[in-house]
C-alpha cells in the first residue's frame, strides 16, 4: 500500500528508509531490545557519518547541516516506523533542542558539535519519581559548591537512554528557580549513578539517575531554565508525534497486507466490512496524524507562535491514532498478532509508551485548550 496522501517521501525519506531496512530489521530490533545498552554503536556511527542524521537540524556553525525540523520529522517518522533502537530521540530531539533553546553560546559550542557528529550521546533528565514533565515536578537540588561551581543532589527518573549518555542535561531547582545543568554521564563522575530500568517498551531504554553532590555546569542563566525546557518539551512533543505517525503508518500497512492475504470463512478477511471499516478509520486517522505532525514540524521549523498549540494538538492526536492503529493491528491479526514472535506487540508497547511520555493525550488536550485561549 502506498499511503494516498503520502506523496512527500522525498530523497531524505527514501535514503533513511533504505538505511533502516538494512540496519534495523526486525531481528536487530529484537536483539537490541533484549540488551541493556539498547543500541548498536556501529550503526550509530554510520547514522552520523554516512547520513549525517544527528546534525540534520543543528545549525552549520555547530557542526550540523542546518536543515530544519521538517527534515528531522521525516527522519523520526522513518525511525518510528522501523522501531530503531538508538539514542537518537534523546540526543537530537531532546538534548540538542534544549541546548539550542538555552541561548548559552558556550554550551552550544561545547556540546552541539559532538551531538552532530554522533560522538556525544546526550539526553535530558527532567521528570522525577512523580513522573511529571512540568516545572512543579522539578525538585532535584542545584547548589553552589564552596569550591565554586555547582553541585546537584537528587534523583531523576524516566530518563531516556540515561545509562548510555555521555552528556546529561539536568533540570534542577536552585535558589533562583529552575535551571539547566550539564553533567558528564560517561566517566566515573563522583556521586553519579545511572541505572537502566526494565521498560514496557523494550525498544526505548530508560534509566534512573541518582545525584549526590555531582559537579555540574550551569547552562544558560540561573533560574531562567524553564523557558528553554518548555520549548524543548514542545519540540519533543512534535518529534514524538512524527515518530508516532511513522509507527502508525507501519502498523496500518501490516494490517492491510494481512487482511488481503489471510483467508477465513472462505474469503480474505479484508473483504469483511468489519475489517474494511476498521482499516478505513485507521487510514483517516493516520493521514490526519500525518497532517498534524507535518504542520507542527513546519511551525517548529519556522519557530512561529503556532508551535505550542500545534505541539499539543499533534501529540494528543498522534498518540491516540498510533495506539488505536497498533491495537487494531493486533485485533485484525487475531491470535497470531498476540504472539511474541509477531512484531505487532512491539508497536503496541511503543505506542502506549510514547503516548504516556511527556504527557498523555488528555493532558495535551487540556494544554491545547489553554494555548488557544479557552
Amino acid at each position, binding site marked *: 500500500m502506498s499511503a494516498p496522501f503520502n506523496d512527500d517521501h522525498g530523497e531524505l525519506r527514501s535514503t533513511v528508509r533504505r538505511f533502516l531496512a538494512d540496519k534495523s530489521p526486525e531481528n536487530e530490533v529484537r536483539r537490541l531490545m533484549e540488551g541493556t545498552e539498547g543500541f548498536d554503536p556501529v550503526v550509530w556511527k554510520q547514522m552520523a557519518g554516512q547520513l549525517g542524521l544527528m546534525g540534520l537540524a543543528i545549525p552549520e556553525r555547530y557542526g550540523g547541516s542546518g*536543515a530544519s525540523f521538517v527534515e528531522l520529522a521525516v527522519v523520526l517518522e522513518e525511525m518510528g516506523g522501523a522501531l530503531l533502537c538508538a539514542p537518537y530521540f534523546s540526543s537530537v530531539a531532546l538534548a540538542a533542542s534544549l541546548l539550542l533553546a538555552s541561548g548559552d553560546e558556550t554550551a552550544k559550542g561545547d556540546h552541539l558539535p559532538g551531538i552532530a557528529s554522533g560522538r556525544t550521546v546526550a539526553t535530558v533528565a527532567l521528570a522525577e519519581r512523580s513522573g511529571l514533565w512540568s516545572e512543579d515536578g522539578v525538585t532535584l537540588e542545584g547548589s553552589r559548591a564552596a569550591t565554586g561551581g555547582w553541585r546537584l543532589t537528587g534523583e531523576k527518573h524516566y530518563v531516556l537512554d540515561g545509562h548510555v549518555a555521555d552528556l546529561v542535561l539536568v533540570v534542577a531547582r536552585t535558589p533562583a528557580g529552575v535551571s539547566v545543568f550539564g553533567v558528564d554521564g560517561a566517566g566515573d563522575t563522583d556521586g553519579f549513578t545511572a541505572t537502566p530500568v526494565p521498560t514496557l517498551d523494550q525498544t526505548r531504554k530508560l534509566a534512573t539517575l541518582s545525584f549526590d553532590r555531582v559537579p555540574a555546569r550551569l547552562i544558560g542563566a540561573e533560574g531562567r531554565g524553564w523557558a528553554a525546557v518548555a520549548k524543548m518539551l514542545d519540540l519533543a512533543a512534535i518529534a514524538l508525534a512524527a515518530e508516532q505517525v511513522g509507527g502508525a503508518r507501519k502498523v496500518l500497512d501490516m494490517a492491510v497486507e494481512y487482511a488481503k492475504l489471510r483467508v477465513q470463512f472462505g*474469503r480474505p478477511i479484508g473483504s469483511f466490512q468489519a475489517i474494511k*471499516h476498521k*482499516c478505513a478509520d485507521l487510514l483517516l486517522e493516520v493521514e490526519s496524524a500525518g497532517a498534524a505532525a507535518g*504542520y507542527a514540524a513546519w511551525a517548529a521549523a519556522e519557530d512561529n507562535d503556532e508551535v505550542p498549540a500545534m505541539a499539543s494538538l499533534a501529540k494528543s492526536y498522534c498518540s491516540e491514532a498510533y495506539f488505536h492503529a497498533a491495537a487494531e493491528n493486533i485485533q485484525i491479526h487475531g491470535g497470531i498478532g498476540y504472539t511474541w514472535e509477531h512484531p505487532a506487540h512491539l508497536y503496541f508497547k511503543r505506542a502506549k509508551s510514547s503516548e504516556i511520555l511527556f504527557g498523555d493525550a488528555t493532558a495535551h488536550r487540556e494544554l491545547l485548550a489553554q494555548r488557544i485561549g*479557552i
Partner: protein
Amino acid sequence: MGRAPGDIPPSRTAAELFRQDIREWIRTHAPAGLTGPPPRPAEAAVAEAAMEEAAAEAAAVWERSLLDARLICADWQPEYGGSGLSPQESLVFEEECARAGAPRIRRGAGERIVGPTILAHGTEEQKSRLLPGIVSGEHTYCLAYSEPEHGSDLASVGTRGTVTGDEIVITGRKAWVDGAERADRALVLCRTGGPDASGHRGLSCVVVPLDSGNGVVRRVVRQADGTADCRELSFDRSRAPLRDVVGEVNGGWRAVMTGLAHERAGRAAGRHLGFEAEFWDLVREADKTGRSRDPVIRDRLAWAYTRITLLRLLERRAAARTGAGAVPGADAAVTHLLSAEYHRRFGEIALDIMGAPALVRPDGDGYATDRWQEALLTGRAGTIRSGTAEILRDVIAERLLGLPKEPRAARRRPS
C-alpha cells in the same frame, strides 16, 4: 528532500501571492454592510447570516462585482466564465472571503457537481453552451440521481430514459434532491439500456429542463430539522434534447462517479471556515455560563478544535494534490467523512454545553430551531447524504487501501 507543497504552508507560493491581491480586491469591492469589520473567522457565520437580511441591493452589487471579476466558479477556465484559479487559489479566496466577512456566492449543485461533470465528460459544445449559464446564474441546477427505492444504490436506478429521435424521454421518480425548489434544470440519471443492461451498465446522465410543461412534478418533503423544501421530483414523459446527455448514452456511470467525487469534495471544501467560526461562538457561550471551565467540556472543545484544524490541513493537502492534476477521487470521501462526522459530534457537544436551554426552541412558525439545535439535527443528515458513512468507508478501504470487495449476491434485476 522535504515535502510537497500543501503539506507545509508555503510562504511564497503563487497562492500566497494571490492572497495579497484578492484580499485587496475584496476590500475594495465588497459593499459596506456585507463585510464584517473584524478579520476574525469567528464572525464569518454571523456575517453570512446578516447577509441574508442585507439589502438585496448590496448583495446584487457584490454578485455583479464577482461576476465581472470572474470570481464565481472561479476555478473554471476563462472561456466558461471563471478565472482558472488553482485549487490552492480557490481555497485562499474562500479563506479571504471568510476573513473579510464577505459571503461567497455559489451556484449550488451547478457549481459543485454538474459543472465538474460536464467539464470531465461533456463535449466542447456542451461546455461552451451550458457552463456560462451556471456561472451567470441564468440556470440553476439540481442533481436527480437517487430514487426512493434505491437510496445510495445508484446502480439500481429505475427511472427510464427512452431515446426517440433527437430527444430522450424520461419517466420516473427521484428523491433526496437538494435545491429542487429553486432549480430550473436537473442532471438526471436514468436507465437507457436494454433489458440485459442491468446494474451500472445502461445508465445515462442527461440535463432535463424542469418546466412545468415538461411533465415534471415537485414534491415538498419536510425534514427532521423542521425545514420543508422540495426534495422529490417526478418525471412523466419529460423530454430533453439528446445533445444534453453528458457522457455517452448508456455510458453515464463514469459521469456519476465523477459527480459524486466532486460532490463530496465540494461538501468538504471550505467547511472548516464555517466550523471554526461556529466553534468560537460555542466557546463564547461556554464562557458565559462558566461551562468552559469544566475539564470534561474543555477536553471536548480541544477535541473539536483538533478536528477543525485537521480538516483545514487535509483540505490544503487535497487542494495541492488537485492542483497537481489529480481528479478528486476516493480521497474526497476522506475529507467528506471527516467533515460530516465532525459536525455530527459537534452538534452533540454543543447541546451538552448549552444544557437545559437547549430543551427550548426559539419562537417561530413551524419547527424553528436555534443554531445549536440545528447543528444537532442537520448533523445527522451529513453522514447520510452524498453516500452514507458506511459507503464512504467501503470506498476508502477498497480504493485507497485496495482491500477486496465483498462477494456480491446475485443482483436483482432493477424493475
